């Protein structure tokens, strides 16, 4: 239970809109990250996660609730796990940061 509390306490902050440039190319969204100079190719729901985190700090539960109305897969039991995995990837490439 203690571990669960730590996970739930994690908050995520997104890049500011000025930090990135996004171009919708259909199946993927091309993302240019100005701080690193790197190009990332994002697939759903990563661009949507970023859009909800523009200049904001939210917990996983809050992100899940915010995206619940946008995706069919939001009804699936593992939707929070899917979002957590995408958030971890976005953190790894520097587009999202975490706060305990």
């Amino acid at each position, binding site marked *: 239970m203690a571990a669960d509390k730590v996970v739930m306490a994690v908050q995520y902050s997104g890049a500011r809109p000025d930090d990135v440039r996004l171009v919708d190319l259909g199946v993927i969204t091309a993302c*240019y990250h*100005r701080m690193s100079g790197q190009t990332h*190719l994002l697939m759903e729901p990563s661009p949507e996660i970023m859009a909800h985190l523009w200049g904001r700090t939210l917990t996983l539960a809050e992100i899940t609730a915010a995206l619940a109305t946008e995706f069919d897969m939001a009804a699936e039991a593992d939707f929070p796990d899917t979002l957590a995995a995408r958030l971890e990837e976005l953190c790894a490439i520097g587009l999202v940061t975490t706060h305990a």
Partner: protein
Amino acid sequence: MHEFRVTIGPASFRVLSDWAKPLRVMERLYAAYPRPEICDFTVRLEAPRPWRKWLRPSVRLDGDYMVADAAPLPLSHAVLGAEMAMNLQMALGWRRHVLLHASAVERDGRVLLMTGLSGSGKSTLAAMLGETGNWRFMGDEFALLDTQTGHIQPFPRMVSLKNEAIGVMEGIAAAHRFGPLLRDTPKGDIRHLIPPADAVETMGKGGPPALLLYPRFGYAAEVRPMGREENFIRLTQASTNYVALGEDAFGALTRLVKDTPTLAFDFNDGAEAMARVEALWAEVSA
């Protein structure tokens, strides 16, 4: 050292050589091109050891930008070496445009781009189209994408014909436009072809891209649409300076992907491929 200078499109080169003969060949092949006072890049054709200038002469390539430990070439392949070294300067050093590994031809002010791996047929198709009189040859190796305008600028260096393409073009272009046949090079047989006169006379004039093809020689004729995501990924791979140019290159390539109809183009016969290119061009021009 012997010296040769040439301007190709927006770029200028100085070639220094321990031997006069390769530069005499280049003087002939590039006779119609301007000779610059100031050069963007320098390349050198040097003997790896002093005695290699005369005894079993071999050529070590050097320049402003080089790959480490490149194997020397025999002197008979020195012109190919100079071309490879000039290409390398562009690939690693050019910053004024997004450099795409692509051929380009122009018609009615708009540009047909063709990109793909070595051996895809993009170079031969561009050379063949350039000989028809309907298309202006803009380049067989590099297309220069202007990050501000989105236009393609020509880089009409000598056409580097490989293997089967040599015989194809010998049947089309006049004999005096060919360089010496270079046999058994690291790229197979090579013969250089001087681009048509109009390609050199108008090499400062670019144009907006209207169609992008990914030719693939040796497959049953087929044309398939290409998704934007695959197109974008392949174009970043086809550009040698995408990372170096940063956001300007990102903006230029995403714009190219969004604005330009793009098709995968399999073919196994040059004449038939040209007819299909004409038909596709008519569709995008309608």
